[in-house]
């Protein structure tokens, strides 16, 4: 494989949003593991209400031209704001409950349309969670 075909697409393909520094932390992990952190755009929402989060996410989506949002918690304000955005934009995909395996799968699925890659990554992320040890005796 040539270095040209192995390189990641330039620019973000999705937004990652969540509580505290969740997005930046997760993206820094993606960057450390794959070098493809630039495919994800972190959005921090500290000190914002839901309406302002919705405005910020919409603005970032339009500026970056992305149609995929990853959020941390189904009940979280980023997810609530994203669901409001989805109502008027049928081509936007939201994945709530994102984890590192989800994002790793997403950034390597760069030959797929972002929406398809996001749905595939969500399934991979769900399947990646295991519990080991501590079985009742």
């Amino acid at each position: 494989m040539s270095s040209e075909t192995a390189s990641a697409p330039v620019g973000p393909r999705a937004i990652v949003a969540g509580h505290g520094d969740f997005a930046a932390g997760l993206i820094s992990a993606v960057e450390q593991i794959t070098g493809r952190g630039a495919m994800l755009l972190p959005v921090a929402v500290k000190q914002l209400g839901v309406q302002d989060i919705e405005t910020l996410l919409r603005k970032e989506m339009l500026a970056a031209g992305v149609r995929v949002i990853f959020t941390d918690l189904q009940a979280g304000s980023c997810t609530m704001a994203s669901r409001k955005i989805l109502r008027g934009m049928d081509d936007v995909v939201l994945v709530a409950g994102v984890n590192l395996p989800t994002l790793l799968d997403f950034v390597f699925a760069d030959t797929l349309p972002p929406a398809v890659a996001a749905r595939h990554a969500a399934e991979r992320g769900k399947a990646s969670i295991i519990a080991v040890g501590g079985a009742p005796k």
Partner: protein
Amino acid sequence: MTLELFRIDDRLIHGQVVVGWGQPLDLKFIVLVDDSVASSDWEQELYRMGVPPEMDVYFHDVGTAAERIAKYRADHRAGLLLTGDIATMQRLAESVAPPLDAVNVGGIHSRPGRVQRLRYVFLSVEEAAELRALAARGVKVTAQDLPGARCVPLEDLLNGSDM
């Protein structure tokens, strides 16, 4: 059990409410009082999807909430009543008897015209006056985003001494 907490939070149902307070208080229901959400089926569906299946959510405008608050206060389960702004909580406080004992300011975020009072509370001059008016009715007004955080008295909140 009863309504354990009356909270003002402009994010309405979100992680701090469902998990941060929901788990330690063992909340089984949330009463969301908001005139706009009460008239919007899709917004209600949105907020319902944000809570675990064992937790009920009831949506009311201020008038209906005032009519039904006695039922919620008598509920054998632990509940939380939530408004998205101070004005709504103030209208509710003016409508119910017996009066509200206490109100928790849980999150009012940055917006033009507001000044930061705490990490999670920004208030306009009008909103500060609304909180004072609530307190003048005998309601104990404090700010506290999470159960483990310091419960900030109204005066400390308004003078920003906890910043």
